[in-house]
């Protein structure tokens, strides 16, 4: 009844010529557009295949209105100096409107047909609708702007439309490429501005957090996560995992064979229901076995050990600290190499893997004084090969500045171990070779508390005989 009254009022307005017909069309269409998501409710269910088939053309079509809208803005600006472009701009605006409308319809077909829901999907959809309404308004006010009746409204509106476009397009990009597509390879300083999302903090240290969640996160969360909730299922938090999908629970604690999640990932890859879908990387047999074991043991979020699942020891290999990018220092590094004779060699093509200090070419004359200048590159050096060099106990003053040092070779040198305690500031150190030195077991005392230092080699040293009992000369195996 209210709607009919409104319509009547609008018609009356029309009759009194307060509102011209284009405005009426615009408001009517806008109301329709806003009503569209309520008419076609995204319920997380998959619908007819042909809807999805058509819908999947949305990412293809959508780039046409994007390009046209950008072109429109360029034309409007360019028309200030070449007035004959103004006509073209008008045509492009209508074209944008039509293709935009088609894209919107296909987008809704995609979301509705594919049963895609989630906050990013919703933002993307509303962005698209807002964009189309803005375009409608643009088209409505433009004639007035051309004829000079209004001045600022149209350019402002166009600018707002462009901003909406950027935001909406970013939402769409996050849907196809994942949320961290842009931040993954962002340079360090910028990246710190975008903190990563939290995990199930309450269960820290549990088998779920350390083994199960990482699998689901890597293999499933792209479609069953915060941004997309296919089949109404989210696997990024324990509670949501246990809540299950629209079809009910996907995990039956203690009963892997009745757990839908496990059934889906163990189907034949050619099966229509096989997960992960759409050709994403399937779970490895090890991963499936661990999920099965975990479900069988009751799928607890807090259990810190489950028989049959081997966790990487918490204190064994802490993640290796990436090193800052040294590429800008390459000229200096080369100059250093030619003046000192020792080399700074890249660990790999990734600068974050750091540099190795190699002295083998001039080992016999490489001493503490020659080592000292390498302090300049200290934060980038992850491995120092000082075996059979002429360095002495004083080298530790310099070495203690190599804060990212992971491996230190001092075999066959004159170090006595007197100053080994200076190494205790090197929290990344994993490997220390003191073979063939005069180091005694007493001198090793200060190294005991170093968390990562698992590989100490003491072959042919006074410390060797006493340490064999503790097996520290042997390579520790994971």
């Amino acid at each position, binding site marked *: 009844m209210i709607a009919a009254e409104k319509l009547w009022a609008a018609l009356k307005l029309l009759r009194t010529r307060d509102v011209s017909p284009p405005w009426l069309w615009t408001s009517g269409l806008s109301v329709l557009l806003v009503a569209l998501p309520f008419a076609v409710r995204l319920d997380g269910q998959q619908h007819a295949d042909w809807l999805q088939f058509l819908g999947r053309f949305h990412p293809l079509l959508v780039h046409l209105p994007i390009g046209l809208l950008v072109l429109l803005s360029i034309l409007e600006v360019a028309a200030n100096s070449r007035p004959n472009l103004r006509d073209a701009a008008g045509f492009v605006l209508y074209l944008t409107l039509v293709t935009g409308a088609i894209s919107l319809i296909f987008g809704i077909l995609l979301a509705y047909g594919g049963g895609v829901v989630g906050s990013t999907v919703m933002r993307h959809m509303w962005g698209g609708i807002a964009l189309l309404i803005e375009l409608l308004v643009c088209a409505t006010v433009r004639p007035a702007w051309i004829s000079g009746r209004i001045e600022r409204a149209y350019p402002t509106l166009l600018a707002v439309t462009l901003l909406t476009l950027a935001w909406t397009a970013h939402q769409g990009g996050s849907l196809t490429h994942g949320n961290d597509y842009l931040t993954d390879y962002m340079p360090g300083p910028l990246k710190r501005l975008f903190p990563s999302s939290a995990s199930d903090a309450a269960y820290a240290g549990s088998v779920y957090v350390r083994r199960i969640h990482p699998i689901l996160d890597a293999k499933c969360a792209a479609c069953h996560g915060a941004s997309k909730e296919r089949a109404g299922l989210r696997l990024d938090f324990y509670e949501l995992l246990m809540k299950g999908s629209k079809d009910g629970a996907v995990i039956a604690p203690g009963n892997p064979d009745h757990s839908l999640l496990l059934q889906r990932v163990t189907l034949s890859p050619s099966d229509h229901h096989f997960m992960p879908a759409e050709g994403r990387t399937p779970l490895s047999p090890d991963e499936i076995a661990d999920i099965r074991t975990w479900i069988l043991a009751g799928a607890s979020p807090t259990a810190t050990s489950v028989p049959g699942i081997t966790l990487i020891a918490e204190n064994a290999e802490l993640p290796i600290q990436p090193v800052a990018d*040294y*590429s800008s220092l390459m000229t200096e590094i080369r100059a250093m190499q030619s003046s000192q004779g020792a080399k700074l*060699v890249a660990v*790999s*093509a990734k600068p974050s893997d750091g540099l190795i200090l190699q002295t083998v070419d001039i080992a016999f004359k490489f001493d503490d004084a020659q080592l000292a200048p390498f302090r300049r590159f200290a934060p980038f050096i992850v491995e120092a090969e000082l075996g059979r060099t002429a360095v002495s106990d004083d080298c530790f003053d310099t070495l203690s500045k190599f804060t990212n040092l992971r491996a230190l070779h001092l075999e066959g040198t004159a170090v006595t171990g007197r100053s080994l305690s200076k190494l205790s500031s090197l929290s990344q150190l994993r490997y220390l*070779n003191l*073979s063939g030195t005069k180091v005694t077991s007493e001198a090793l005392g200060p190294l005991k508390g170093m968390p990562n230092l698992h*590989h100490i*080699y003491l072959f042919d040293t006074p410390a060797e005989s006493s340490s064999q009992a503790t097996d520290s000369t042997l390579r520790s*195996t994971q």
Partner: protein
Amino acid sequence: MKQHPLCTDCENPVTPLGLPIPRGMKQQWAANETRRRFLGRSGKVLGWAALAGLFGELCVRSYGEGSDIGSPSPAGNALGLPHFAPKAKRAIYLFMSGGPPQMDLFDYKPSLAAQFNKDMPDSIRGNQQLTGMTAGQAHFPVAPPHWPFGQHGKTGTWVSSLLPYTARMVDELTIIKTTNTDAINHEPAIMLMNTGNMNAGKPCLGAWLAYGLGSMNDNLPTFIVLQTKTNPKENNQPVSSRLWGSGFLSSEYAGVGLRSGSDPVLYLADPAGVDRAVRREMLDTVEQINRQMLAEIGDPETNARIAQYEMAFRMQSSVPELTDLTKEPQSTWDLYGPEAKEPGTFAHNCLLARRMAERGVRFTQIYKRGWDVHGDVVGTLPILCQETDRGAYALVTDLKRRGLLDDTLVIWAGEFGRTVYSQGGLSQENYGRDHHPRCFTTWMAGGGVRPGITYGETDDYSYNVVKDPVHVRDFNATILHCLGIDHSKFTYKFQGLDQKLTSPVPAHVVQGLLA
């Protein structure tokens, strides 16, 4: 007399019309070969030639100019290698040329004893084409291993009593029972194993590594080959330098072979009356001449020659130091055994390999010939094992106690395995074994591989792979992975192909072997 159709007589020129060919063809030729057609074709040929002259350089530039792997990156070396942080910086390859019998050494098949002298079922062999040496045999009698097996280490790995030293280090080894190859004869199989291709002319693993990863020690070659002295009691198949050749890569990446005698590099000392300065001056002049030649002709091999002269000069001081074992402590001889003092033995070469690893040699390959036991397995296999067992054990143990095994990959492999059925007569006392490409046992140890595992399963006859096959290509891809190289990206443009060690056929890094 009738003119011969192919006679080159100026007065009676030969034309296709005079040839003894069907009349229809002659007519067609006469119709086609008009002046207009001739000129038209010439024009096109000239056009294409001009185009090739203009753009050809773009297409064939890569040859001789090194590589075009990726874009020049700020990190890594000029080729952008290693692709990722490597687990192993260097590798030592113990090559058991001839094909060690896997079921006599590692691939324990207790059920074979009951099959003694029974014919192997045809279903096992299938339609396989055998070598000429056993294809004519009427029977394929199963020959169980002559020696008992025992379980060793914490892992309880089965090893033959022929390898008492290897048995002590099984917890360090990554044993692969399902290595398999495409070739059934020595030369193609050994080429495939070393170069990734059965045909000669491709660079070997060591040359690829020398090219891709470069040298760690400027005073020693990046890639050194050591030959073990042959034993006349063994059936020694030849190994040739193309196994450590550089193929289409510059020859400076080829393996440098050290002699197995007491003088590893001949004429290493300067001749009497020539001191270092004179030698340096001479080399500088030779280099100048070579550079002139390079500027004139532009043959990249000239560069290789210059580099080799320089390397030889530096080796004059580095090699005597390398091969001087007098400073080795007693513990070394306790470990490697007294044999290691004798140059040319396998144990001696293993000791040299350890010294090279310490001095930053990227890749060392030790060849041991004689594993081609077609007959008298019982007589020769113990000799072969005695010669190699302790050296291999000592090498791995020595690397480990000195802290080198963390970043050194040790590889033990032959080019194929041997058949479970006896070649020639089978008796209680003796048997022979033919070549077998379908499965053979290899092992790796050290940087990048998972210690203490046995990978893959073979059937009860050690004949076919049942689970987890590892093709030679996968084997090589895995080795490259341990050294920080993605085998599919490590390519060199040659003959219009992006050539790679793992050949154009897809290869996979065997994840199950990795630490």
